């Protein structure tokens, strides 16, 4: 088992859901592909999708919904 991290591509507010009343894009334990969206980053009022960029299984999220994140900060751990 090899563990890799997904890093935030941008600084801003990290959202795990597409909208406040919608379920999370992905949960711990989900299997993902490279093109899957795992969250949104709000930067200066514009919303940007975060793609997984890796295929594997999500071990855990390191950033929670509505956390402030910096560019390059790890946001999830993936078992690839």
């Amino acid at each position, binding site marked *: 088992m090899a563990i890799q991290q997904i890093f935030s*591509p*941008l*600084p801003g507010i990290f959202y795990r859901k597409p909208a406040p009343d919608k379920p999370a894009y992905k949960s711990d334990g989900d299997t993902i592909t490279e093109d899957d969206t795992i969250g949104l980053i709000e930067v*200066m*009022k*514009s*919303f*940007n999708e975060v793609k997984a960029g890796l295929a594997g299984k999500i071990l855990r999220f390191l950033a929670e919904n*509505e956390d402030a994140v910096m560019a390059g900060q790890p946001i999830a751990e993936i078992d690839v």
Partner: protein
Amino acid sequence: MAIQKLLIANRGEIAVRIIRAARELGIATVQVYSKADKEQLAMRLADESIEIGPAQASKSYLNRDAILAAAKATGADAIHPGYGFLAENADFAAAVEAAGLIFVGPTAQSIRLMGDKVAAREAAASAGVPTVPGSQGRLETADAAFDLVKLTGFPVMIKAAAGGGGRGIRIAHTAEEFHHLMPQAQAEALAAFGDGGLYVEKLIEGARHIEVQVLGDGHNVIHCFERECSLQRRRQKVWEEAPSPSLTPAIREKLCASAVALAKAVHYRGAGTLEYLYDDRSHEFHFLEMNTRIQVEHPVTEMITGVDLVREMIRIAGGERLRIRQDQLRINGHSIEVRINAEDPAKSFMPNPGTITALDVPGGNGVRFDSLLYDGYTVPPFYDSLLGKLIVHDEDRASAIRRLSCALGELKIEGLATTKPLHQALARDADVQAARFHTAWLEPWLATNAASLATAEAAPPTPATAKETAPSATGGQ
């Protein structure tokens, strides 16, 4: 009761603007800040500062309780909300007054009335102000709405009663589109605003956006003429000017008189703006909505009238009557404001937070730069992308455009990409120079002129993994 100590419940360039005005009036200032905003320019200028919460606006600048607690802790007797955030939140205005403090703005009742776009249309109609042809009151059912659009004809805009500022708008060109969009609009309005009420307006294609600045003291109202803000991208204003280059004196007089009539009918207090669509082929204007706050583009009005709008609104909030009579106001010359945003016009206006590595600010006669910038400042990613507003004033529009070009040439902001190249290209454009534009002019222009917008000042590389999806629904300016 004159204000002794003013708390600024905002951030960025408008906080700087309000602090300056308060200081000129001899009023002490308190600047609130989030954890991500400790380095902001407003805090360097204010007499004192107080933290109100974490970076997320929802937990700091939008947190009513935190702001009221900050006012109490610092002994402020008044709160200025600026624009955006809590500026048009009637419950906040009421809570400020209930706490025994002065809200620098209109009454909660005025904010609530004008915030309900259907009620505002009705107030306008009963004050004799022409509104865009469309529904009288809310449309509760899709059938009622369809009966109406059969009369107005297509295209129509479906708007949320609780929306505003361009939010919650859908455009239907045909009956099929209308039947498809109406239920969607209803569901979206309910989800976004907690109010599924809708109204329908005829879409007036090729119209200009013209707005009238008013000042009221609760008894009397004056206007400070109009601004034209037809150059918009995604319904956000980009370039604003005063006076409008497209009005004749007779129409200007009618338009401004209609704004005063509506503001008087609601006993308006403070600075406010009535937005209109103007069709320069039929010479008809139609009331759109009223913004019950100071606006981003207020400086162009200040430049042509000599009235300091922010100072006047603070004086009125402190209990003074209007000091200016309508017959004392004249239009002097022409003023243009361009918004310098931390967005890269060469990359679909990608937001661009970062650190300012060099800053040269233009100067000279008739040049004003209202901004949140200083050399070495790191622009946080959490808030609006507006860095500053470059404002010029000159004897006429052609001279003002030349002065704008010169000032943009002097403006140097290094470390992040800005919208400066967009404004340089617009100032060179023959249609802009001739004022041949309307609210749907800029977006197609951007599509054909994208190549000329490459920024000369290096931007940090943006990662390829981030794809912009949609603009936020939380824009407040």
